[in-house]
């Protein structure tokens, strides 16, 4: 009798604790991005931002599923698609069902294919793909699938927003498009040509060219051509040293107009441009840092800077991704990936950076405010590279690309 009671009692305790565990369940997210090699800097900053966002926005605010924590588990993919697939398998074997990746569209394309196949073959072990940075339009068009969600605006939406702003400026008569000779550079050029010829009838494209990626020793000859063409605005998708080299050469050749870019900030670029780039370098992107939209946003950034004095909030969208994912998990009431994905579809979210983020259901592309920001040291609250220079929002396109077309035909799990 005594024995039976104790067994019953033990069983009861076990039952309670299992129940408790189901209530407060930790959720792991595999962060698959470069943490070594030439792009380690970008990956390391992304990881720090993910961890900070999970702690600040979710774990310290009650967590997920009744007190569970979001845990970010890093996996180094050395920015190789092949390595990423291995790391994906390792993550799945460890029981992780949510994958976050962003650096390189090539990697994202490989991952989205692999995850779709995996989910088809393993209906009991579905995996969710949170793409926080890769902007290749194909990911939410031809290659879209139910498991992939993109939180950055894709390259087409950004160009659409940029040209919406440019068309209001009648002084921009001659536009010069220049980019790196590979898929992304070509995609930016194609989008620019399409948008400008549609929206800006009085503007001519005086130059459209690609230069070898990472091989140009001196950008001065390109700058001379840009000057000789009488250019009013330059558009480029360049990044890294190609961005700095081009920008500096063009400015030193005496160019005074705007240089519209996608990636001319942070990781040393802002500091290198410094005073020279003031009011010339512009950037199209999401996430407003200056002026801060709210005390909450300001506290978030200062908290991050206090923790990582040498880092910056390079990818504000990570905060949206983390908050929306947590919401989706709570709404699903567990870690059933189909339920989480269904909850994310069409989700509306008031972003910490102001405005709304809508996860468009038909292609899983986040629709959000896109800003044109200028490189300056005036009225900058949060600078980059501790250089006193930062990005100040000049104009905003509300819910950019809300009605942009998509060729996505998604099959949903029944």
């Amino acid at each position, binding site marked *: 009798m005594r024995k039976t009671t104790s067994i019953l009692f033990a069983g009861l305790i076990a039952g309670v604790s299992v129940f408790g565990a189901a209530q407060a369940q930790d959720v792991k997210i595999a962060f698959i991005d470069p943490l070594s090699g030439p792009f380690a800097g970008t990956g390391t900053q992304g990881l720090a931002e993910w961890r900070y966002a999970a702690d600040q926005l979710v774990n310290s605010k009650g967590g997920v599923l009744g007190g569970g924590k979001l845990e970010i588990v890093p996996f180094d993919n050395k920015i190789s698609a092949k390595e990423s697939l291995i790391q994906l398998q390792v993550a799945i074997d460890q029981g992780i069902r949510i994958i976050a990746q962003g650096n390189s569209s090539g990697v994202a394309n490989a991952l989205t294919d692999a995850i779709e196949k995996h989910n088809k073959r393993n209906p009991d072990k579905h995996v969710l793909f949170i793409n926080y940075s890769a902007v290749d339009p194909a990911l939410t068009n031809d290659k879209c699938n139910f498991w992939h969600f993109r939180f950055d605006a894709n390259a087409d939406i950004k160009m659409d927003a940029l040209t919406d702003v440019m068309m209001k400026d009648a002084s921009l008569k001659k536009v010069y498009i220049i980019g790196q*000779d590979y898929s992304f550079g070509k995609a930016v050029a194609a989008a620019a040509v399409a948008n400008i010829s549609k929206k800006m009838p009085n503007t001519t494209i005086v130059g459209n060219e690609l*230069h070898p990626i*990472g091989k140009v020793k001196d950008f001065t*000859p390109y700058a001379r051509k840009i000057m*000789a063409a009488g250019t009013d605005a330059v558009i480029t998708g360049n990044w890294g040293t190609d961005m700095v080299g081009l920008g500096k050469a063009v400015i030193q050749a005496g160019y005074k107009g705007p240089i519209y870019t996608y990636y001319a900030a942070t990781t040393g670029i802002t500091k290198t441009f410094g005073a020279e780039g003031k009011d010339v370098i512009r950037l199209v992107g999401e996430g407003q840092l200056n002026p801060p939209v709210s005390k909450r946003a300001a506290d978030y950034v200062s908290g991050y800077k206090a923790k990582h004095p040498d880092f910056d909030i390079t990818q504000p969208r990570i905060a949206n991704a983390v908050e929306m994912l947590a919401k989706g998990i709570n709404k699903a009431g567990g870690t059933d990936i189909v339920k989480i994905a269904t909850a994310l579809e069409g989700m509306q979210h008031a972003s910490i950076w102001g405005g709304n983020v809508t996860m468009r259901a038909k292609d899983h592309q986040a629709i959000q405010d896109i800003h044109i920001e200028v490189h300056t040291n005036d009225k900058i609250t949060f600078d980059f590279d501790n*250089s006193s220079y930062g990005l100040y929002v000049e104009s905003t396109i509300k819910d950019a690309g809300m009605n942009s077309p998509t060729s996505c035909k998604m099959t949903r799990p029944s």
Partner: protein
Amino acid sequence: MELVIINLLDGLVMGLLLFMLSSGLTLIFSMMGVLNFAHASFYMLGAYFGYQISQYVGFWPGLIIAPVLVGCGGALIERYGLRRVHKFGHVPELIFTFGLALLIEEVVQFIWGKSQMAYDEPAVLNFALFSIGGNEFPAYKVFMIFIAVGIFLVLLYILTRTRVGLVIQAALSYPDTVQNLGHNVPLVFMGVFGVGTALAGLAGVIAGPSLGTFPGMAFLLGSIVFVTIVVGGLGSLWGALLASLLIGWLLTFAASYNVHMSDVLTAIGFTPPEDMAEHFLRDLWTLTMPQIGPILPYILMVLILIVRPRGLMGKREV
């Protein structure tokens, strides 16, 4: 016409910068028979040293101190590294300098990180000196021209008009005879290696602000420096100058003019294919001059090796 003049000037700056690298390399190569793969790494070290010194005492002291540091480092590496490897032959030497290049790149990334450094032109030279047809020419580039020309004149004087220069020239051709005459040839080698790397360091200090200071800078410029000394002729200072200017102008003009391959092919009598997207030679037809610019120096090198293997001004076969 205005564009041609400004391109000539830009090409001159590029060419003289190449000359500062190739002059040291060609002396080292012809004297010691060492193809110094790490030469461009000393150029990178110069830029990073210059940047670090400029953070404390400004650009100008860095212009002197950084090359001296790089030169001393180079001399020590010759004395305690290269000279030991030398007795095992050329292949170990080659591997030694190759490893050194990788090591320097890793060390630079370890200390300064992977991002580009904010190494800027000194404020006093950060203005446009003149402008041709709306294209401004920075004062800093004029300064680069003067430094490089000054270096050339000093080198030329030392090599042809001084006793040291005579010993170096003699050691280039007959090292054993020079040694038998009582000169300390290993010391001459060490000095030449030190001065050569110091010149590369100086090139780095003045190029860092204008072409960017980042871990890939050695690789970006290094590949072309070898082409320069082969084209110019080994051991010839005039050859190095001539080849550097030639390649500087080649790179600049190739990037400046959007000559389309389709125009060239049509001009020499080919008809463009009806359906470009499907044609098997479409890549050739859609090429433009700026796209092939970076490989032109290599084509030039191959041509020189076929037609005149000793290089433009060289005295002996490669």
